[in-house]
């Protein structure tokens, strides 16, 4: 697998790991290492004095580049404020921009998302927006100066895979920035499909963190992303309505 770049920064792994949902920091550490991910997302929340251990120490040990998110924000205003707090907390101007429009489906709010993206780009952020699988919105986000677009496969944590492969293909075909499939991955074949569809990377959390064996699923996801990428670049055969024999059709013996 060749490295890929976001905003001039090079990453070896095309699997980005979200750290939400792990039962413990130790479980997270094992899974992050097994995933081979170079990038890990974190959220910002009010300080809980009873919390044990430091997620940052664990992710530093794993060699991860930190990507703070704006999870939990429902307005552009909150998302922009959260991004600025994350910049202060983690000394990074990278942000996974998430502006949710519906608390049941967790689908993005397109208009708040675009507003927030424009404001953060103007403020010097490297913005990676979690977006719906709408090709026009993806283009608008790219035009706004986002460093990548991150369409969902299906709602966050749903494990429903890629609900609209056609839209994803349209986004990939048109994008001039990296396309990272974000959300909805349930199992390894979903991640492989995303890469075969031409995504540059896959971001997932729940599929690994809530699996019965997170580290084992992280290994499966690493292999799936590698396999999907390899297959995409190996040039698959066309789909045919009828069969086409692979053994020679000439020289078949007459035996009866």
């Amino acid at each position, binding site marked *: 697998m060749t490295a890929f770049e976001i905003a001039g920064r090079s990453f070896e792994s095309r699997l980005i790991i*979200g*750290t*939400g*949902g*792990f039962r413990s920091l130790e479980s*997270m550490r094992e899974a992050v290492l097994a995933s081979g991910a170079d990038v890990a*997302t*974190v*959220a*910002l*929340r*009010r*300080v*809980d*004095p009873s*919390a044990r251990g*430091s*997620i*940052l120490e664990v992710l530093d040990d794993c060699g991860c580049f*930190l990507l*703070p*998110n704006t*999870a939990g924000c429902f307005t552009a205003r909150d998302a922009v*404020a959260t991004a*600025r*707090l*994350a*910049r*202060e*907390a*983690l000394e990074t101007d990278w942000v996974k921009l998430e502006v949710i429009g519906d608390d049941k489906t967790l689908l993005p709010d397109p208009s708040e998302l675009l507003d927030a993206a424009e404001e953060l780009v103007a403020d010097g952020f490297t913005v990676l927006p979690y977006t719906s699988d709408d090709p026009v919105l993806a283009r608008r986000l790219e035009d706004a100066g986002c460093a990548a677009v991150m369409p969902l496969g299906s709602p*966050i*944590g749903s494990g429903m895979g890629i609900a609209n492969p056609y839209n994803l293909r349209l986004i990939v075909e048109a994008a001039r920035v990296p396309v990272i499939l974000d*959300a909805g991955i349930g199992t390894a074949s979903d991640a492989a499909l995303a890469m075969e569809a031409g995504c540059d990377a896959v971001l997932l*959390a*729940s599929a690994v963190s809530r699996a019965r064996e997170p580290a084992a699923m992280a290994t499966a996801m690493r292999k799936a992303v590698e396999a999907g990428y390899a297959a995409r670049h190996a040039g698959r055969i066309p789909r045919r309505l009828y069969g086409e024999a692979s053994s020679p059709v000439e020289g078949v013996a007459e035996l009866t």
Partner: protein
Amino acid sequence: MLTVTLNGQPRELPDGATVADAVRAVGAPEDGRGVAAAIDGEVVPRAQWTVRALIAEDRVEVLRAVQGG
């Protein structure tokens, strides 16, 4: 004493308390790694924590990095 809203809860702090005092009061790490503070939604840069005095009714949020997708 002055009363501020600290992470959503009313909290009494000594007169002259700064953002650094609020950060300590919620039990955030002293070195501030992974921690950020805001007053009324505006980020207070770490360099100003020890000098930015709180006033009554400030809404202070002290956040830190946690697990999240």
